[in-house]
């Protein structure tokens, strides 16, 4: 057992170091709003960054762990945003419950899509998700009951945690978004260490071999899809409560689906830190590009993405986090 003993020593120490760094980062992030009360731009930047990091985690669960790359995850964001908003407008449902309802609807839609599309391999699955998301965009842009292309204004409430609305001081949104990314990361790390994570990674490596050991790949991929869709839908509800207005371009666009995938890909696919690093890099670039190149910012930030993606795929195909890894890439 000397082999086991020898190989155990360094990782245990590495765990401590990693734990310490995470605690330090969290402490800084918790204290930061104290200095940002008068800096709405930075506050918003970080809030959006957390939101994308949480969504990147959710996307990564399906793509990075189970190997099913989706370019249609924006649809779950839209489903979450529209479900909670319509429930608030229609029956006055509390947005927290609306968010859970949206997650349930998105998870169900995800399962139906999975049943139909998981038989498609590789690029065909990507194309199917992309087409489905675009179809949903067009349907919502034309659907009067949900405001069509005009979009929906959320009913304004007295600001409180229960109402999920804060008007003057936006710092509660920051903390809620931080809680979202912490929860999403914790869920992914927890699943990764359990049976679910092992089996999902096996499916990504070789679906047939995994099946031969007694696991149903379809069942595991559907669970990953449902969790992933549900998490993203809750982020959609958060966005609706944050901006207080939704329309198809803001919550159902292709750009959103691409961005969700990119934060995980650029940061490091199949790793828990990847989406966080990816969101930090991409959201910062996107928001600053919008200021520096005002007016034409939308296009220049896209060009910058293009450059970063090319640089990452050429020099660091396993993502930015692989710069810090021992073996330059994927997980154990």
């Amino acid at each position, binding site marked *: 057992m000397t*082999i*086991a003993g020898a*190989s155990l020593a360094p990782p245990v120490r590495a765990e401590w170091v990693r734990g310490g760094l995470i605690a330090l980062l969290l402490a800084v992030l918790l204290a930061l709003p104290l200095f940002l009360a008068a800096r709405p731009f930075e506050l918003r930047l970080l809030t959006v960054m957390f939101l994308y990091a949480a969504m990147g985690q959710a996307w990564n669960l399906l793509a990075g762990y189970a190997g099913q790359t989706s370019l249609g995850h924006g649809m779950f964001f839209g489903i979450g945003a529209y479900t909670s908003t319509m429930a608030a407008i229609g029956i006055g449902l509390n947005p927290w419950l609306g968010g859970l309802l949206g997650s349930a609807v998105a998870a169900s839609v995800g399962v139906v899509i999975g049943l139909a599309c998981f038989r498609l391999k590789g690029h065909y699955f990507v194309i199917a998700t992309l087409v489905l998301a675009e179809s949903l965009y067009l349907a919502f842009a034309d659907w009067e009951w949900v405001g069509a292309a005009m979009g929906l204004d959320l009913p304004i409430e007295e600001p409180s945690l229960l109402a999920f609305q804060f008007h003057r001081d936006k710092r509660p949104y920051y903390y809620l978004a931080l809680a979202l990314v912490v929860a999403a990361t914790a869920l992914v790390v927890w699943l990764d*260490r*359990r*049976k679910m994570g*092992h*089996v999902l*990674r*096996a499916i*990504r*490596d*070789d679906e*047939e*071999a*995994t*099946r*031969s*050991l*007694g*696991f*149903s*790949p379809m069942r595991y991929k559907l669970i990953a899809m449902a969790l992933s869709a549900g998490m993203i839908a809750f982020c959609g509800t958060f966005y609706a409560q944050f901006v207080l207005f939704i329309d198809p371009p803001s919550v159902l666009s292709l750009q959103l689906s691409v961005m969700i995938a990119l934060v995980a890909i650029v940061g490091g696919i199949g790793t828990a830190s990847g989406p966080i690093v990816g969101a930090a890099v991409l959201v910062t670039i996107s928001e600053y590009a919008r200021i520096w190149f005002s007016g034409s910012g939308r296009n220049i930030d896209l060009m910058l993405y293009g450059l970063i993606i090319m640089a990452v795929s050429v020099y660091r195909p396993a993502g930015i986090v692989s710069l810090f890894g021992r073996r330059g890439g*994927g*997980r*154990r």
Partner: protein
Amino acid sequence: MKPLLEISNVSRRFGGLLAVDSVSFDVAEGEIVGVVGPNGAGKSTLFGIVCGDIRPGSGEVRLAGARLTGLSSDRIARNGLVRTFQTPRPFTSMTFLGNVVVAALARTGDTAEAKRRAERALDRVGLLGFRDAPASGASTGQRKRLDIARAIATEPRVLLLDEPLGGVDPGSIDEILALLQRLREDGMTLVVIEHNLEALVRLADRFVAMALGRKLAEGAPREVMRDPRLVDAYLGGEGHEAA
């Protein structure tokens, strides 16, 4: 005593080719049965049918009396009948241990327990020293043994081995034979497809010989090997050229 695995009148046609033609044989608990025959005899198709990857056109397979035919392959594996692949298929992003931990998780939800069982399985196939090495770097012989470790970690009752000696260097053949012998001593039942008949004779209790989809002969390995029909099939005798 009732046989553990019963294969009854199994047939499968691919287009105009009758790949498996009414094959029947039984395997008793604790037995090692060798399935032999030239390329194209239908051995791998038969394996595919037994483990659920291929639906038979007719016939049925039973494990301990329960019908397996019609069940999905993952369900059949959970019922205790597990296969290895002719070309091993390790999970290449994982270590040797990681590969086997996945398999052990088929029987336990506890990852710590799965790790202990995986270590035992790696130890049994003689790969414990490589536990933390990436599986992508494994040699052919190591891949074969890793495949076996993964299969036994799922605690099967019947293990189907598809050419466990194929492509393995001569020095490792004895090791793998000894390993399979130990598995049988532990109560596992083995069905082995193998082209290395000399090696298989030393291992198997019984041979089932196939050619052109049909069962030619069945019995003690040395007798089956002397059977003129099998010799004929290997040498491509006239009786078989028509098809």
